[in-house]
């Protein structure tokens, strides 16, 4: 049987991959894509808990997560477009004015 541990571990792996991608890619869009990957991991974890505890709260939570992800994607991409228009580049390292 699929145990809770399986869901949690796979969710953790997806989350970790998303974190790694967020930290090491330079393309702004890919950075946001990595956050979406993180979301996937979290959704999986939430649903796993829902299954374990035999209720639907986890799934409802995952539904709202989906909404948040959509909202975030929309706004983030709008901001990325603005940034691109300003510097004509999608490089995250172009925005390092506050360096010490």
């Amino acid at each position, binding site marked *: 049987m699929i145990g809770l541990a399986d869901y949690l571990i796979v969710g953790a792996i997806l989350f970790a991959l998303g*974190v790694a991608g*967020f*930290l*090491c890619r330079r393309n702004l869009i890919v*950075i946001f894509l990595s956050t979406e990957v993180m979301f996937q991991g979290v959704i999986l974890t939430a649903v796993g808990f829902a299954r374990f505890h035999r209720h639907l709260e986890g799934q409802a939570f995952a539904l709202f997560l989906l909404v948040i992800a959509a909202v975030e994607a929309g706004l983030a991409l709008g901001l990325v477009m603005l940034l691109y228009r300003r510097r004509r580049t999608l490089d*995250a*390292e172009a*925005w*390092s*004015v*506050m*360096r*010490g």
Partner: protein
Amino acid sequence: MLDFESTRGLALAVVFGPLLGAIAAGVLGPRVLRAGTHFAAILGVGVAFAASVILLLRLQGASADQSSIVIPLFDWIAGAREPLVRAALLIDRLTGVMLVTVTGISLLVVIYSRDYMRDHGHAVRGYERFFAFLALFVFSMCMLVLGGNFVLLYLGWEAVGLCSYLLIGFYYEKPSAAAAANKAFIVNRIGDFGFGLGLLLIYLTFGTWEYGPVFEMVQRGVTATGAAVGQGTLTAIALLLLCGACGKSAQFPLHVWLPDAMEGPSPVSALIHAATMVTAGIYMIARCGAIFTSSATAMSIVAGIGAFTALMAATIAIVQTDVKRILAYSTISQLGYMVLGIGVFAADSALFHLFTHAFFKALLFLAAGSVMHAMGGVIDFRNFGGLKKVLPWTFSLFLVGSLALAGFPLLSGFFSKDEIIHHALQANKLLGGMAIVTAALTAFYTFRMFFRTFSGPLRTPPGVHAHESGGWMIFSMAVLALGALFAGYAGTHITGQPFHKSLEPVFASTFLTANPFHASHGAATAHGGFLGEYGLMILSGAIALLGILAAYVLYVQQPWIPGLIRATFTKTYEFLWRKYELDEAYDVVVVTPLRGLGRFFVGWDDYFIDGLIWIVTVVPRAAAFGLRAFQSGFLQSYALTMVAGLVIIVLLAAWN
């Protein structure tokens, strides 16, 4: 009976007259008085001289045991229960004699300077400064002599050193003058260091600074707590005080500053380096007689140093060619005589010689100044000669002074020098022999100088128009010449030795009673020495005449002889010419190590101290350099830090 109020008034007049004169000359001189600044100095020093004479007469009039008085002025440094240092003046017969000598010679020198410090009638640059410093010096010397305790003595001691520095360096734009002023002050400082240690030792042993209590305790042989004072302590105190005397009175090995001090104007040389400041050491030893006489070792060392210095300086003087330098070495030699006199317990003879020496040495220096004035600043007698025709007055006055210095019979120098030789012979045959040889050399080099300057064909430096000196200068020199001729009669047996008698109360308990060579000292006792004294007198007179004759032969009649002597004894000549290479020795032993030490400390300051500061500054900057890496401005770096922190937290949570 000395009246307290009037004595105090006179003493304060002696002190404050020159001080106010100095202040007036310094403050009002540059704007108001200008070429009349000498009046301020003459007035100030004149007041002091008048007060000193009245004081001396009063002191002579008072009976022997009433002739000493202490005048307290005010409490200077407060202590816990009672003041640590009081300002008080001590006035006794010794003070009176010293004051009259100092103020009298000072007055004559100030009068002389009015003409000397002028160039064709116009006052030289710094005229006001000169008189201000001169008056300040008189004030300092009077403070030294009048001081009633060791602190005031030290105050006056340092003040005269300062005035000497200021006056030697009067022509401060001349590098040699500035260097000479430094040398005088620094060499004096070396002596003053020992002097200061001696004073501190006195305070530590006896618990007080006042003369009276200290001398009384020394004679009883006890310290402040009543315990017996060790002989070693007394000898140590005496030797440390002697250090100061050697520095101030130019005895070996601290004599090197006096010849260079001739860079100052001639009046300064006459006053400070002939008659007054250099005698401060003699005065101090005489004043502290109780301490010195309590230690036979110290007295032997004093006598030895005096005799050695006298002989050494005389040998250097016979090859020098600068008139003022010859006079400087002659001063060192005569001071050696005085120190020798004190060393053989003949303090009154030493002070008598101080008295007569002041007259003829000051006269000689002023006459040399007159020659220098006429020769346009040149004083090396290789550049001139035969000045008898153009400077008749100077010639006669110089002759009087030279005769007195050489010890020509019946002049003042003859009597005073003879006394010291007599006492030296009684004490130790070697010392007496050295004194006699020195006397011969003195006569020789004095008249060598005289004949080279005034005899023979007239020669002057090129472009110089020689003229006789002005009235003021002649007047001062004439008065001093009178003193050189007749001052000796204050101490002869025929006149009853009034000079020595008057100083008896001062030295009664110290030099006179402690004298191991002479059961009782004084004019009246004969015990076989009287005829011996006359015999010695004849011997000294003969030696003086012999010296003069030798100089006459060598420098007037057969002038080729000195050249032959020099060619034969070239090595010796060179060694004497370079003053026994003592200056070079000082340079190697003292000056170069001190310079090296100074450079070391400069480097220490530059590298070590500044390095420490640099380390203090570098630490924050290096830390900033390291920490700056965290502030890269990239969002992802910050995110990385956050996630890393999260990992660490989870790690810590997982492992607990």
